[in-house]
């Protein structure tokens, strides 16, 4: 019989095998993979010695390329060359309207809530494109390190919401990578700097990447990295710099009316390289040459400053807010860490230095600093350093709450709360004999449901019929160390429970990912179609139920006969199509009914203000709340 070896507590066994774990920076513009080998951390190059992998995927006729190979097709084959896909992660088709002007590829017409990009190799989602980038990095790591990976720490912008984090995890799953932890990019950067220089104190991490801006305020103390506050803008970055410059350049060259994707890409590439060149020189010559167009001109630092100042100011507003959230003044900040390629732009460095009144740290390559920190964390999580003192304490970037009476959001977990965290809130029923309750989970800072991001809806059904107010429903939000949310609800008297891992309504379920792995894209789309249909049918039920409940209470007082007729007609129309499989028709009839009820709802809200002020509620069900967070709620 073999004896089991037991090591002295606190020491690792000599036979302990070093586990291969990597840190991956899945960036908007570039991605990197790094690891710790013999105590040294470094980013891993490809066979040509390149450390950066451009986050570009080309769906070619013969093969699929990622990185520099894909980039070569950016101008020649723009529609099949996907860039900056990170900006689409976790985004629903509805979120695209403003942003998609930055892109010059086409989105597929689809019933699906997830936007899909048309390529010659089929329609692809952002998750699938990201998975291709991750697969490439994984292959690079395995080739370099000579063995399979235990797992990876993948970084995300601190400001990423639930949907975007989930999409990142989904991409890793598709790429068959075991995610040890999703780590916020600024925290990763602080890890890289903190361990190098042994800093203690309060630091700010200013991270301006290609498509996202993050500001984080952290306290460093004896190896513990504590995030005090984080803020930013998940759709502001170097791409917007390039866009501003491109607009200027197009106007200068008289090309601002041109629609050709190839010319747009050319302008963008020139804009980007001009911006990069101005980090080292005062002025840059620009020569445009494509087809029969020829233009020559120059861009200098003063002009660049004028173009970019409004954007940089936006980032400083976020800094101001993060400082206030952290309850810290400018002068308490001992260091400012610069992360992201866009912080190479001089105007950014100058304005940040002015704002924080200190010279920012730039000694680690801003492109590599995040991957470096992620690799250090991966090494710890894989268990290669058993007595490691380092610990990262993170916060949730956006508040989480549920819908209450009148379309308002009741926050249950406030932004910048340390995670993991669990919070419970009690609710009760509104009507006698009510046996079900709908829970609508939202994320965001605004008051109105319509201004927040809808994460999930679920229902708690089948609790015993009692008089209004007797039922006790406890809704618990649990956020794990990755910042992902599980909501559960329990009726305390009967013990009936419901629980959901929050999958945003436009996200992918585990099953869908399986399907995508196995089947063709068409099949996956069918799945999505039937899910959307179910969602619309549930929505229709919800709308009708809510309306009926409201009408029963105060239709007579608040509606004229004519108004009542209009509403009844719209209600009947919705009932007629509800069980059909025509998603559009159901959607449309829901809209009609909602429009018909608009004045009525407004009147109800006015007359209900009194009720709303006395207690909290979900949908039409009021509640008396005995919150676990009294001080915050009041």
């Amino acid at each position, binding site marked *: 019989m073999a004896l089991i070896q037991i090591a002295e507590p606190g020491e690792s066994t000599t036979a302990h095998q070093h586990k291969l774990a990597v840190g991956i920076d899945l960036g908007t513009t570039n991605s990197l993979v790094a690891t710790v080998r013999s105590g040294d951390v470094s980013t891993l190059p490809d066979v040509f010695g390149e450390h950066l992998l451009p986050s570009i995927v080309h769906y070619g006729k013969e093969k699929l390329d990622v990185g520099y190979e894909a980039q070569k097709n950016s101008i020649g084959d723009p529609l099949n060359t996907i860039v900056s896909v990170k900006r689409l992660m976790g985004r629903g088709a509805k979120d695209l309207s403003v942003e998609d002007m930055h892109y010059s590829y086409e989105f597929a017409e689809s019933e699906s809530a997830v936007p899909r990009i048309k390529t010659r190799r089929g329609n692809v989602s952002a998750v699938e494109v990201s998975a291709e980038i991750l697969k490439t990095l994984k292959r690079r790591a395995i080739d370099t390190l000579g063995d399979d990976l235990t797992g990876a720490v993948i970084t995300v912008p601190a400001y990423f919401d639930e949907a975007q984090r989930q999409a990142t995890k989904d991409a890793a799953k598709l790429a068959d990578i075991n995610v040890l932890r999703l780590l916020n990019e600024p925290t990763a950067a602080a890890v890289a700097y903190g361990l190098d220089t042994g800093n203690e104190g309060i630091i700010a991490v200013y991270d301006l990447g290609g498509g996202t801006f993050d500001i984080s305020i952290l306290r460093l103390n004896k190896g513990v990295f504590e995030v005090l506050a984080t803020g930013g803008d998940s759709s502001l970055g170097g791409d917007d710099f390039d866009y501003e410059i491109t607009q200027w350049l197009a106007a200068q060259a008289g090309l601002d009316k041109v629609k050709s994707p190839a010319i747009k890409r050319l302008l963008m590439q020139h804009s980007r390289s001009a911006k990069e060149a101005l980090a080292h020189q005062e002025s840059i010559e620009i020569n445009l040459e494509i087809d029969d167009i020829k233009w020559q001109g120059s861009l200098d630092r003063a002009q660049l400053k004028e173009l970019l100042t409004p954007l940089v100011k936006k980032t400083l507003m976020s800094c101001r807010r993060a400082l206030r959230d952290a309850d810290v003044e400018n002068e308490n900040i001992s260091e400012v860490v610069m992360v992201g390629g866009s912080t190479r732009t001089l105007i950014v460095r100058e304005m940040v230095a002015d704002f924080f009144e200190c010279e920012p740290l730039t000694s680690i390559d801003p492109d590599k600093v995040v991957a470096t920190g992620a690799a250090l964390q991966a090494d710890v999580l894989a268990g290669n350093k058993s007595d490691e003192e380092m610990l*990262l304490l993170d916060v949730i970037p956006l508040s989480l709450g549920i819908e209450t009476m009148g379309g308002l959001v009741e926050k249950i977990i406030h932004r910048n*709360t340390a995670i*993991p965290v*669990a919070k419970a809130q009690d609710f009760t029923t509104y009507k006698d004999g009510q046996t079900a309750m709908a829970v609508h989970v939202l994320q965001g800072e605004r008051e109105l449901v319509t201004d927040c991001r809808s994460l999930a809806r679920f229902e708690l059904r089948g609790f015993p019929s009692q008089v209004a107010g007797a039922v006790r429903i406890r809704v618990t939000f649990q956020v794990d160390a990755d910042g992902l949310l599980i909501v559960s609800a329990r009726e305390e008297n009967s013990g009936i429970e419901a629980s959901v891992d929050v999958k945003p309504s436009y996200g992918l379920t585990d099953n869908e990912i399986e399907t995508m792995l196995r089947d063709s894209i068409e099949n996956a789309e069918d799945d999505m179609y039937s899910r959307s249909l179910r969602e619309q049918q549930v929505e229709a039920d919800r709308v009708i139920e809510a309306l009926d409940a409201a009408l029963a209470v105060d239709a007579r007082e608040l509606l004229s006969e004519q108004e009542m007729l209009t509403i009844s007609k719209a209600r009947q129309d919705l009932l007629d199509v509800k069980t059909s499989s025509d998603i559009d028709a159901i959607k449309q009839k829901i809209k009609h009914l909602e429009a018909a009820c608009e004045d009525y709802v407004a009147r109800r809200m006015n007359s209900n203000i009194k009720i709303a002020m006395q207690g909290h509620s979900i949908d039409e069900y009021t509640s008396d709340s005995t919150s676990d967070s009294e001080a915050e709620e009041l």
Partner: protein
Amino acid sequence: MSKDILNSNFFELFDQTVSFDVDLHKVQQSYMELQKQVHPDKFANASDQEKRISMQRTSWLNEALTTLKNPVSRATYLLKLKGLDINLENETTMDAAFLMQQLEIREKLENIKDNADPLAALDVLAGEIKNTSNAMMQGFSQSYENDDLDDAREWIRKLQFLEKAKNEVNALTATLEDELMG
């Protein structure tokens, strides 16, 4: 585990005597030491059950730290430990001077946009609220130490008003910032 984390009150958890005047620096240190033992990062390769317990414990630690860090929630928690539930929404009596002060704050908030620099004016208002709060915390602390719990409760009610005013100042600041950001 030397300490039964889930069954300790927030003060015991961080080796503090049960009192309004806590050494936040020591609380912070103790919090970090405990986190080093229980945080999910220490259980990345452990069983699901261990992960779950780790998550529960860390959540509890975070709740404890949040409660003690904020003076109003700390005060409320102290009374809760004494068996007093603070649910004061329906109680409306308040001394007149305090109500006047509240009205003044509301007026200033409503008229904030008339200032040349509304953000700076909000900063000033936030400072005033903070000073008043600090004075009231002194009041709470004394009442609590003298075991005059009705009085202590009264202070918390006032502090909650001020906390609400502070939140409104912050919300308005955020709105103005949003407008400035475009």
